[in-house]
């Protein structure tokens, strides 16, 4: 089932505030073999927060996405400053674009991630490819 065309341009509610702890960053760094000295979190760590925003999109029953039919097509991070422990981050996802190609939905998303003061930390752009039912 293709997702609804009205999805394009839609902004979803901000995710619940996510407190960044040293423990969680260390767990992520260990899982990816990355350096972590208590300072800047690994480059791709904000996906943890962005993914919560993407899950809210993918699990919204009005959108019509099935998680196991989703493949990540593209990802980009643009930082204002690194993420550090002590940050409390929220992500607000907007669907920037929606195209249908060969029965698949190509969903371009942008998650703006800000700190407790509302100051920009990092923007995470993700393209999600949602394949239709097998023929």
């Amino acid at each position, binding site marked *: 089932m293709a997702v609804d065309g009205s999805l394009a341009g839609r902004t979803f509610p901000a995710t619940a505030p996510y407190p960044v702890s040293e423990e*969680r960053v260390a*767990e*992520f760094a*260990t*899982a*990816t*073999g*990355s*350096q*972590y*000295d208590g*300072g*800047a*979190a*690994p*480059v*791709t760590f904000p*996906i*943890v927060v962005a*993914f*919560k925003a993407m*899950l809210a999109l993918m699990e919204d029953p009005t959108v019509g996405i099935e*998680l*196991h*039919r*989703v*493949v*990540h*097509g*593209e*990802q*980009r*991070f*643009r*930082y204002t400053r*690194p993420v550090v422990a002590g940050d409390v981050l929220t992500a607000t996802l907007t669907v920037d674009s929606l195209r249908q190609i060969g029965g698949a939905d190509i969903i371009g998303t942008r998650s703006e991630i800000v700190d407790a003061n509302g100051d920009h930390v990092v923007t995470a*752009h993700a*393209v999600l490819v949602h*394949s239709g039912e*097998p023929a």
Partner: protein
Amino acid sequence: MTTFEVGAALPAREFTVTRADLVRYAGASGDRNPIHWSERVATSVGLPGVIAHGMFTMALAARALDDWAGGPGRVREMGCKFTKPVVVPDDDTGVVVRVAGTVKAVEDDTVSVTLEVTCGGEKVLGMPRAVLVRG
């Protein structure tokens, strides 16, 4: 100390990826999509088998970047497409992901790098690139 000169090569790195790594990454990232742990679900949606999270492969590329740059916190932009899945066999050997790169531009305070991320000699990330802050 890393020298930032146009044309400079990042030393190639090789990372072995096993199913255990994917389970650890699923926990650390919150991405529990079954295509990253269930052969049955992965093949049911047309994949050749269990595949690595694209974000896990990207995290390995970021790890190589951070190591090369002398530590985390210097990457201001990073992006890629996920062009070819990294299929991870159900054994203790796993697969090898190789990360190499080249300095493409040096500005007053930033360095632009293009990467080449391969598995079995084939590119698995499309146009992976990053911008780092110098010094």
